[in-house]
């Protein structure tokens, strides 16, 4: 049998067979875990029944009855608890995506600055990293939130940039695009532009491989992605206009300031949370980037220089691609951390999943269900992020030829 392949004596009894023993232990462990799980679940159900606590998912369809300050899709007090939780989920995803975007940019810039030959720049980056990563995140969130609130003008005043972007304690006000019939062509033009850019980029690669000639790919793509939608906009007779925030300066004092629901309002809770998360995570990403770059042998830089490449292209074409292999796995962890840390939003009134879920929990008392939803959502978000990053890591991994 397989004892031979495992290298055990052929005549050994089943008791001493390493394979059989291994199987047995695993079986025992699984049985024990299942038993434990069963006991926990039945015990919980029994306790809930004994204490007359209602359970089940029916509550998700009941009317929520409370307001939420920010929602990516229509929500009102008459919506259901399920809708309220979805609002929270999308707000969490929004914060995570925007936070990850900025954290990555800051992190790479600071990580590279940390290795700069310029003493002032590298010291500044060093101080940033040490200061930011050693202060608890919750404190930083409070700092940004209350710093934002204290620093900007009050409700009845504003700071304006070109009379289109306004800031006051109520948030950042932006013009809102209003789409009219025909505006779908703009979206189609954008998609066409993206596809065309991909096709041209493939062609440019092939041409470079064949002839060595480079093609101004970046500017071509920018031209296409900006130009085509603008063209479509003009051809379709400008089917889109901007709704500007309306600032009322007269009348009763309470009514002065920006009108509700006109234009886009980015609430200060979102600004503070995203800023805190991005700045905090960027400090960790900077260290990861530094480690990644330092992991690339200096000989690579020297070789690139010997080929006549300047510093910029050396970093972009030789060092960073090799460094990415080291950077991506720990970078994934930082993305996961940022997503999970966004749950601290509850401290500053940003309605993320935990905040909204907490309210639902309190109104319905369905602790087990809500905590189950929290765990399920954060687990799924984490698994999705790491699946994507693993896929990206495999693509970036060094292909040995």
């Amino acid at each position: 049998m397989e004892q031979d392949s495992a290298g055990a004596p052929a005549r050994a009894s089943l008791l001493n067979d390493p394979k059989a023993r291994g199987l047995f232990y695993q079986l025992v462990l699984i049985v024990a875990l299942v038993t434990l799980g069963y006991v926990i679940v039945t015990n919980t159900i029994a306790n809930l029944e004994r204490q007359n606590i209602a359970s089940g998912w029916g509550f998700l369809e009941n009317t929520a009855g409370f307001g939420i300050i920010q929602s990516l899709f229509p929500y009102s007090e008459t919506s259901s608890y399920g809708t309220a939780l979805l609002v929270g989920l999308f707000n969490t995803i929004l914060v995570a995506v925007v936070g990850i975007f900025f954290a990555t940019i800051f992190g790479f810039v600071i990580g590279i600055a940390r290795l700069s030959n310029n003493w002032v720049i590298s010291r500044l980056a060093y101080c940033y990293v040490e200061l930011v990563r050693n202060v608890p995140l919750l404190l930083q969130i409070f700092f940004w939130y209350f710093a934002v609130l204290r620093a900007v003008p009050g409700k009845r005043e504003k700071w304006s940039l070109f009379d289109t972007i306004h800031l006051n304690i109520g948030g950042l006000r932006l013009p809102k695009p209003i789409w009219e019939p025909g505006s779908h062509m703009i979206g189609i033009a954008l998609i066409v532009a993206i596809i065309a850019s991909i096709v041209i980029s493939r062609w440019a690669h092939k041409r470079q491989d064949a002839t060595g000639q480079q093609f101004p790919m970046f500017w071509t793509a920018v031209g296409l992605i900006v130009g085509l939608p603008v063209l479509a906009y003009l051809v379709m007779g400008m089917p889109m206009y901007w709704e500007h925030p309306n600032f009322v300066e007269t009348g009763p004092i309470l009514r002065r300031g920006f009108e509700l629901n006109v234009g886009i309002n980015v609430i200060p809770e979102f600004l503070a949370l995203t800023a805190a998360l991005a700045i905090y995570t960027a400090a960790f990403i900077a260290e990861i980037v530094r480690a990644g770059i330092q992991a690339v042998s200096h000989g690579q830089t020297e070789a690139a220089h010997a080929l006549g490449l300047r510093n910029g292209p050396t970093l972009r074409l030789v060092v960073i691609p090799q460094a990415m292999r080291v950077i991506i796995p720990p970078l994934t962890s930082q993305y996961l951390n940022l997503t999970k840390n966004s749950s601290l939003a509850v401290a500053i009134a940003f309605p993320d999943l935990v905040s909204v879920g907490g309210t639902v929990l309190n109104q319905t008392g369905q602790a087990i269900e809500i905590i189950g939803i929290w765990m399920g959502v954060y687990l799924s978000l984490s698994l999705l992020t790491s699946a994507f990053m693993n896929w990206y890591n495999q693509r970036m991994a060094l292909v040995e030829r």
Partner: protein
Amino acid sequence: MSNKILPLVLGAAMGVAATTAAGATTLEDVKAKGFIQCGVSQGLPGFSNPDSQGNWTGLDVDLCRAMAAAVFGDASAVKFTPLSAKERFTALQSGEVDVLSRNTTWTMSRDTQLGLNFAGVNYYDGQGFMVRKDLGVTSALELSGASVCTNTGTTTELNVADYFRANNMPYEIVAFEKADEVVAAYDAGRCDVYTTDASGLYAQRLKLTNPGDHMVLPEIISKEPLGPVVRQGDDEWFNIAKWTLNAMLNAEELGVTSANVDEMKASDNPSVKRLLGAEGAFGEAIGLSNDWAYNIIKNVGNYEESFNANVGPDTPLGISRGVNALWNAGGFMYAPPVR
């Protein structure tokens, strides 16, 4: 090794089952550990607030102290757990606290769906609005378009939504988990309005930079009967909580105070005799000694004493008795008799 792992794991599983399923009564638990674990707010002046030495005082705190006096004859046999609005019910359900005395509104869903019992009302409250005086607003009906700061996970959040919807006024809600952050955000001008129970508004106003710049609007938009809560299914403990509150109210009605309770023991009034354990065995009927009410009054005082010391007109909160006066003085406070 396997023959060691299995019993260990199974043993642990059985242990979990045993400890959670076995039901000692709350009174037995409390007596065994020697103190009552009391869930209070995280700091609401007048109701439950820790001073610089960590001593808790307030109307809600006094109720827990009174229960400790009833059970142990010692008002200090209490430990306090500060709980956020969101944590409070879970803490009580899971047995982390024995009683929740935390300005909690008695509502039907809480009473019937959460496995909880409300033991009475120790403060009749209602939700109000506070605004800056310089807004020039005199009524809550002028608050259309306002941004409103409040706490998450409270009935407040629902009431304010109902009120603005019913009056067809748009609004913007900014809901924080902790009261301190609501105060800070309101103080910074993030919101035009701060809403919570009126008692809470008076208490939190003391924390603002310039309390004098703010006013509470006249509208009271909800009924908020606040009172102590215990777990459902333990009638003995429920009775103790209920009758501790009733004893304090009855003592006020009968004129028994912490100062005169020793003389009153010799009173000829049968109601006083029954309350103080000189006649009948009412203490034993609820699993305590017969001088339970005497201990409450001697150590903590009657309801009036507690009210005046914590939230009354002579305190910084300056709340008048209003609807919280006894039934025979025009208020709602009405305790069933001890007999």
